[in-house]
């Protein structure tokens, strides 16, 4: 008997709203089936089930907002007898505990900082609750923090979700603030000659129909996954005070959304893709970004992020690492710039590649080698 819970799709997520059940009680489910759609700060997310069995009953109705970790449905394993009500002790593993950021400094003795979760703070602002009113509330969250639930009067319907953009901005703010608070970033940059990469793409795309063409962005991503295989300290998660390298490379692409905001869905196991399949996966993933539909794992399992300014950006981008990842690689806008070849100055297509990495895990020396590996890979774009 297992429980199917509201997953955590990132350290900044506190709650999600169940939008749709795609399976009904009595339906058989298999590991990997998408059983529900959840609305989060990052958009609508399809949630997969991680075990085979029978969906015995749902515990949360559509339209309900529940905290991360809340059981959503009971799944009966094959061959298991129907459970007597009420719900037995959950034996399914709880979702990854979300590490709570430590306060940056001990709060001052007098006038202690108000503890309130970001979502609750937003709701408080919406309701026009000032700090004095908030201080009167006994928070039920960690360390007495005021949570969303504490602001909802008993019996009151869950608060209307804030406008999607505001929610997304809150999610970005929470993740980035945590990153800057917890991760000692260091930054490196390297100008990379894109002459071979451009020539390779022009030749490769000459006989391809538009739907099979490869973009420079795919070449960038491929160069990073190849380098991450050689330098595992840039690919994984820093959780519970230690770095856990990942065997697979789940490369997230930071994508600016039309109308504002940013999401970074991952191409799962991008490290196993050749260039053509990486391009196809990129197209598929970015196509779904436009419709606002990702799968849960695409947001929660990213192990490294690649961000690219595209053709209409500026020279250099300094990334902010997405916790619990430990590195982000940025590509500035490719353009013709001066390079020195055989003692003379020539114009060549170049990009500036940057690395922001976590000093708890690696040092500048290894970071430089990693960046040079990316550079080298871009000089040999045809290599597998």
């Amino acid at each position, binding site marked *: 008997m297992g429980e199917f819970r509201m997953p955590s799709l990132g350290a900044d997520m506190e709650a999600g709203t169940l939008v749709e059940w795609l399976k009904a009680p009595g339906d058989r489910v298999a590991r990997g089936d998408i059983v529900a759609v959840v609305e989060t700060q990052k958009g609508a997310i399809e949630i997969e089930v991680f075990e085979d069995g029978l969906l015995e009953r749902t515990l949360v109705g559509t339209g309900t907002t529940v905290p991360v970790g809340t059981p959503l449905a009971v799944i009966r394993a094959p061959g298991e007898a129907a459970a007597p009500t009420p719900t037995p002790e959950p034996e399914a593993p709880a979702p990854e505990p979300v590490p709570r950021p430590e306060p940056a400094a001990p709060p001052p003795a007098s006038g202690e900082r108000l503890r309130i979760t970001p979502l609750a703070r937003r709701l408080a602002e919406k309701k026009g609750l000032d700090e004095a009113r908030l201080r009167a509330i006994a928070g039920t969250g960690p360390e007495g923090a005021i949570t969303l639930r504490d602001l909802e009067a008993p019996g009151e319907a869950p608060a209307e979700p804030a406008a999607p953009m505001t929610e997304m901005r809150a999610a970005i703010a929470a993740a980035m603030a945590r990153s800057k608070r917890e991760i000692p970033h260091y930054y490196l940059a390297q100008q990379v000659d894109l002459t071979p990469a451009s020539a390779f793409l*022009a030749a490769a*795309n*000459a006989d391809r*129909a*538009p*739907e099979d*063409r490869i*973009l*420079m*962005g795919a070449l960038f991503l491929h160069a990073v996954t190849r380098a991450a295989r050689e330098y595992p300290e840039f690919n994984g998660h820093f959780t519970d005070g230690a770095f856990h390298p990942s065997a697979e490379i789940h490369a997230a692409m930071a994508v600016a959304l*039309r*109308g504002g905001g940013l999401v970074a869905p991952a191409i799962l196991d991008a490290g196993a893709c050749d260039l053509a399949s990486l391009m196809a996966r*990129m*197209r598929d993933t*970015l*196509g779904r970004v436009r419709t606002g539909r990702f799968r849960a794992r695409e947001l929660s399992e990213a192990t490294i992020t690649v961000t690219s300014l*595209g*053709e*209409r950006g500026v020279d250099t981008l300094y990334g902010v690492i997405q916790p619990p990842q430990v590195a982000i690689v940025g590509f500035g806008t490719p353009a013709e710039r001066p390079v020195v070849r055989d003692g003379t100055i020539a114009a060549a297509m170049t990009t500036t590649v940057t690395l922001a990495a976590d000093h708890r895990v690696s040092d500048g020396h290894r970071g430089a080698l990693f960046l040079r590996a990316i550079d080298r890979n871009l000089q040999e774009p045809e290599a597998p």
Partner: protein
Amino acid sequence: MTSDPIEDLVRKELGRIAPDVDPGEIDRKGDLREECDIDSLDFLNLVTALGKALLLPMPEADYPKMRSYDALVAYLRTSRHAPDSDASPSS
């Protein structure tokens, strides 16, 4: 909509990619990517859709002839009538 089927097609496909942009409002001679705030993948998707609809190869080497809305429409018109020649619309 316009009275021209090619323009209608361009507008329809642009609307899919940049639904928040009104093609009637953009600078038709300006850089299409700037005018519609589209990136290289959006542009590739646009080229893919137009090529499929009009049975044109839309080679990458011709991208410079598709820089603006007007240039793109002119390119599609010319290419359609001379699909095998090196169609070169006046820009």
